[in-house]
């Protein structure tokens, strides 16, 4: 059956062309995900603390930010930043726009994770710490935050996995990552099924180990509760 043989030998050739390119693009995907995660994790902490602020204005503003940003799709935010900001004079390259957009969007979700983490700790813990004379920063640093960190890690891990997948959406604003490169390749080779399957496998190879780690983490942390 030379038809099938021909197909597979061609495919083998093509794969050797595609895979290095896709791998390089996958590196961009990872970079984008890491930067966006860092932005989301830090800005999310800021928002979470802002919501705990005693100033009504500060906590309300933070709450409104969270509701608005979570209410719209991440893609909308990316479009606004990449296509909309230029009319205000701010022109960002697609990669940076994607990192900022995904980071700002993620911060809203992450702030909720932090809030749940801090709120999930028995109030008695704080009172007990204060009763033995710890000041507020010490209470936070030695008692509350370490416990909150354990509650927060699995959801943060799951968020990271979701973020890794969401970077694919940045292809729609032309950011250089894995899905965009796959898209370019498929219009070049007219073999979308094969190419997208390969890129899908690459995403799987990145996300599945992370998912396994998060599950292991969840099991470990559940034991010491």
């Amino acid at each position: 059956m030379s038809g099938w043989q021909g197909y597979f030998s061609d495919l083998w050739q093509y794969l050797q062309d595609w895979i290095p390119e896709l791998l390089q693009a996958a590196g961009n995907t990872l970079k984008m995900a890491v930067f966006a995660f860092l932005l989301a994790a830090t800005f999310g902490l800021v928002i979470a603390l802002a919501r705990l602020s005693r100033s009504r204005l500060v906590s309300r503003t933070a709450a409104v930010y969270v509701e608005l940003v979570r209410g719209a799709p991440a893609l909308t935010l990316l479009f606004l930043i990449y296509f909309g900001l230029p009319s205000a004079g701010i022109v960002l390259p697609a990669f940076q726009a994607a990192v900022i957009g995904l980071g700002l969007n993620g911060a809203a979700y992450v702030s909720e994770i932090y809030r749940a983490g801090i709120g999930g700790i028995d109030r008695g813990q704080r009172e007990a710490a204060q009763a033995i004379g710890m000041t507020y920063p010490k209470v936070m640093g030695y008692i509350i935050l370490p416990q909150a960190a354990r509650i927060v890690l699995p959801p943060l891990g799951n968020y990271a996995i979701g973020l890794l997948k969401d970077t694919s959406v940045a292809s729609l604003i032309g950011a250089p990552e894995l899905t965009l490169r796959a898209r370019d390749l498929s219009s070049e080779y007219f073999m979308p099924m094969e190419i997208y399957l390969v890129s899908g496998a690459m995403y799987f190879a990145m996300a599945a180990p992370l998912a396994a780690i998060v599950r292991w983490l969840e099991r470990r942390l559940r034991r010491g509760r």
Partner: protein
Amino acid sequence: MLPDIVAVLLRAAVTTIEITLGGLAVALVLGLLIALLRRSHVRIVAVLGGIYVEVFRCVPVLVQLFIIYFGLGELGLRLAPLTAAILGFGLNGAAYLAEIYRSGIEAVHKGQFEAAAAIGMTRGQAMWWIVLPQAVRIALPPIGNYGVGLLKDSSIAVAVAAPEITFAATNLINETYLSTQIYLVMALIYISMSLPLSYAVRSLEARSSRGRAR
């Protein structure tokens, strides 16, 4: 100008809702099937179910849409964008809902299985009449959250030219060059759809944690 923009986008919102409801419907049924398959005593079946969930949850939904729309097209099966979107979100959603169903079933008190067995019900009867009705009630808030998420994810269908909100907005911008304004209106429409739904799910969460069965 503005009223026309809003009108166009609102009409596209109907497609957004179609994608959301259609995808959700497929995911609800297929997800239940997969959740039950994962509990099968036949090893192969359970493992296959597990693989399905892992694969569909570890690959971006955009890539899945591309595979269904462009990939199947290469093989000769050309689907309409709306169909491809519903199918794609449905298959993807089934993996997430299978996990939600699984949590729901595991949350049902083990004594319920035993009581059903004690009055002579088979595993299938116990699942259908006793456990699933309770599991679904427990699973409603997470399912609701998933639905709201799907409403927002439907924007990804712009990539396969499904005539939903983001697609309509992009076309409008190509015609009018009013990008910021149109994207802001688009954002507002999404927010005005998803926020009430979020609140509804949150109040459902509060209510169901009150009246829990024992």
